[in-house]
C-alpha cells in the first residue's frame, strides 16, 4: 500500500524557490511550510512538528543543509529528506547524502523530479 504523503517542509533561503516548491507540493495535494535555513528546520522539529517529506537546500546561511540533515537524523527524525541543490560537485553531493539524505535532486525542481522523490518515499 502506498504511504500517504500529506505534509512537507521546504527548507530554502531563496523566496522564489520557496514559492515554487510550495506550489509544486500544493498541486500534488501536499500541505507545506517553509523555513529559511537549517537552524529553523531543526527548531521547527524541536517545537514538536513533523513532516512526511523535507526538501532541503544545501547552501543556506546560519546552518547549511548538510549540518541540518545530520542534526535532524541525530534527533531521530525519520522523515524522508530530499536534498535539492544547484551544487553539482560530486564530493559535496556525497557529503550531503552521507549526512542522511534519502534522495538528491538538482535544482531547479520540476514536477517530474518531485514525483520521482515521492515514488522513492513510497518505496522507503
Amino acid at each position: 500500500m502506498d504511504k500517504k504523503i500529506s505534509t512537507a517542509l521546504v527548507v530554502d533561503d531563496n523566496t522564489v524557490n520557496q514559492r515554487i516548491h510550495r506550489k509544486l507540493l500544493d498541486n500534488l495535494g501536499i500541505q507545506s511550510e517553509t523555513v529559511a535555513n537549517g537552524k529553523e528546520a531543526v527548531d521547527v522539529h524541536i517545537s514538536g512538528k513533523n513532516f512526511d517529506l523535507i526538501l532541503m537546500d544545501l547552501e543556506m546561511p546560519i546552518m547549511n543543509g548538510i549540518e541540518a540533515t545530520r542534526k535532524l537524523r541525530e534527533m531521530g527524525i525519520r522523515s524522508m529528506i530530499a536534498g535539492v541543490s544547484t551544487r553539482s560537485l560530486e564530493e559535496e553531493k556525497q557529503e550531503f547524502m552521507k549526512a542522511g539524505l534519502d534522495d538528491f535532486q538538482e535544482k531547479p525542481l520540476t514536477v517530474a523530479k518531485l514525483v520521482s522523490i515521492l515514488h522513492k518515499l513510497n518505496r522507503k
Partner: protein
Amino acid sequence: MEVGQMQRRLVDYTKSLFMEGFLDSQFLQLQQLQDENNPDFVVEVVSLFFEDSEKLLNELTRALDQTNVEFKKVDAHVHQLKGSSSSIGAQRVKNACIAFRNFCEEQNTEACMRCLQQVKQEYYLVKNKLETMFRLEQQIVAAGGSIPIIEMSS
C-alpha cells in the same frame, strides 16, 4: 487589434524569448504550475524574482565598491541570484551568474565588476521582455480572450 491578432502576437513574442535565450524550459514549468487556484502564479513568482534581484544587485554593487572586497559575501549574493534566475528560467541571467561566480573564486575584483555589469544588463533586458509579455497577456484578457498555450516543440 482583434483578439486573434493579439494572441498571435503574444505567441510570436514569447517564442522569440526562448529562441533568443532569454528564457529556457524552466519558464514553461512555471506556466504549467499555474491553475485556477493560482491564476496569477507566474506573475507572482516573476515579481518575487524582480524584487529579490534588485535587492541583490544593489548589495552586489555595494559589496564590490568596498576597499577590501569580501568575495565570500559577493559569491553568496551571486549564488542567490543564480538560484532564482535558474528557477524562473531566466537563462541568460543564470549564465551570467555562473561566469561571475568563477571570478569570485579567483578573487578578481575587476572581472567581478565587469560581470556585475553583464548580469545587470541581462537582468534589465529580461525584466523588460517579461513585462512586455505580461502586458500583452493583460490586453488579451481585457479584450475577452484567453492566453494561448505556447508549444515550444516546433
